[in-house]
């Protein structure tokens, strides 16, 4: 009894497509509805970030880092200034450290809200998208109050921040957190425990932990596979070692460990942990001057450094080489979504076409960061 082998169809998804999270092209070889091979093609948003950073001064690189991962720009800034401060051995005042942590964690909540809302949209649920954007707008209001911008802030500078917190920041921020915490239960009722959502995401696109480490996957994608690795706890930077928070791991509650639902669930739990960190930071916020350690001219000593920080997508690394002048010699950004997308070809084999979209949504990629 022979096996009937049909011809394979080559299907092209993108670069303009409503569910590809940006300009991404996927070339899919399918046998009917089952996918046998996927090749991602990127580079449609290559904006020459690294070439620009070799021609402008160190301060002027910061707005360019904003625009790479445009959904979590505070975390991008944070990674760059932490790396620069380690290279130049600057110690920033305590107030600056607390402000930076508050802003980074608020941006983590905003980024996860967008990721989860758009994931629901990919799978077919329109309402959670509108609810999550409603709450995300309130976070953007807080950012606008502080530094004037809604999306791309240029807020964290080497040695400090660009604006001090406004006068009643604590009241507004705590007000937002008190409003937001019960909303997580609302999202769980709408989406997480929804039978259709579970059918589409549980057991789909399982990423085993050793494959994940070999592919350089990090962040919520790695934690969804059960590996306990978070740069904030394992290679702490800034003042993260003073806060108490837990690291949620994927446990395979509704399916196998490491499926798309686990990656979604880790992001949902991380929002709760970020709320805890912000409450602790606001309680201990000291007074002080935020501008005193900003150097007038940045001239780091000769040398190179590689430092990674935790962005909402994973390990964001900056490799900076300085030759003693005010203009960097080489700045390389190691983006977490780049490695997550390179693993798509491995985990999406054997699934149906609509499952591929669910897997891609659970990896939470941002093309601006991948193409730089």
């Amino acid at each position, binding site marked *: 009894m022979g096996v009937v082998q049909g011809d394979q169809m080559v299907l092209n998804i993108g670069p303009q497509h409503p569910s590809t999270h940006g300009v991404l092209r996927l070339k899919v070889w399918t046998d009917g509805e089952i996918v046998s091979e996927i090749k991602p093609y990127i*580079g449609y948003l*290559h904006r020459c970030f690294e070439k620009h950073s070799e021609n402008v001064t160190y301060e002027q690189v910061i707005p360019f880092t904003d625009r790479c991962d445009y959904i979590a720009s505070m975390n991008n800034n944070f990674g760059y200034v932490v790396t620069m401060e380690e290279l130049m051995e600057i110690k920033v005042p305590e107030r600056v450290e607390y402000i930076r942590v508050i802003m980074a964690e608020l941006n983590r909540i905003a980024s996860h809200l967008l990721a989860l809302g758009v994931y629901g949209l990919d799978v077919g649920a329109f309402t959670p998208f509108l609810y999550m954007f409603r709450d995300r707008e309130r976070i953007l209001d807080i950012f606008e109050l502080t530094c004037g911008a809604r999306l791309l802030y240029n807020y964290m500078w080497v040695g400090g921040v660009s604006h001090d917190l406004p006068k009643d920041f604590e009241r507004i921020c705590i007000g937002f957190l008190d409003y937001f915490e019960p909303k997580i239960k609302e999202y769980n009722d709408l989406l997480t425990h929804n039978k259709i959502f579970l059918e589409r995401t549980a057991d789909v696109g399982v990423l085993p932990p050793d494959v994940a*480490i070999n*592919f350089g996957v990090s962040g919520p994608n790695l934690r969804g596979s059960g590996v306990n690795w978070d740069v904030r706890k394992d290679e702490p930077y800034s003042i993260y070692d003073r806060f108490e928070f837990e690291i949620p791991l994927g446990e395979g509650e509704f399916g196998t460990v490491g499926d798309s639902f686990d990656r979604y669930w880790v992001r949902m739990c991380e929002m709760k942990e970020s709320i805890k960190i912000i409450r602790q930071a606001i309680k201990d916020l000291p007074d002080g001057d935020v501008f005193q350690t900003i150097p007038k001219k940045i001239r780091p000593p000769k040398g190179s450094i590689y430092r990674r920080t935790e962005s909402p997508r994973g390990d964001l690394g900056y490799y900076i080489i300085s030759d003693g002048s005010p203009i960097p010699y080489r700045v390389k950004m*190691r983006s977490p979504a*780049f490695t997550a997308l390179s693993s798509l070809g491995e985990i999406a084999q054997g699934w149906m076409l609509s499952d591929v979209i669910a897997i891609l949504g659970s990896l939470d990629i941002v093309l601006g960061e991948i193409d*730089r």
Partner: protein
Amino acid sequence: MTPTEIKETLDREFPGSVIDNEELAESQIELKPDQWLEIATYLKNDPGLNFDQLECVTGIDTGEDGPLQSRYNFHSMEHRHKIEVVISLDRNNPKVASIEQVWRVGDWFERETYDMFGIIYEGHRDLRRILCPEDWEGWPLRKDYEAQETYHGIVVPKIKEEEWE
């Protein structure tokens, strides 16, 4: 293990491949490109080193007439130690062994360094441009790069220095 101990281990196992370079920091090792694939496999599989995470592959152009460099950052999840490997390549014929079969993440990292610098990774199964279009000319991140005049009829404008005074 500290970087010095790792350097000594590599010198013992692969004599002659570690190059002493004063300009590098303590956590950086310079290696010769000859036995790179064997050393990489050893770095991953040896239980004492166990570097299972390749964090980053960076390409560097050290200036005119200088070599091109390919730098690799490694990290071990079990032992929590790090090392950085630097390999210098001749500018006119930059070839080094590819490690994409050892760490699968190296696949896209090496394609990106090839796209930006022109470093050829021998043994890579699918080495082609990843960020720039397939028919782009030149290696953009080299220090002596001049952008091409037109691409498919679209002008790639150059800045005329006199106009911006």
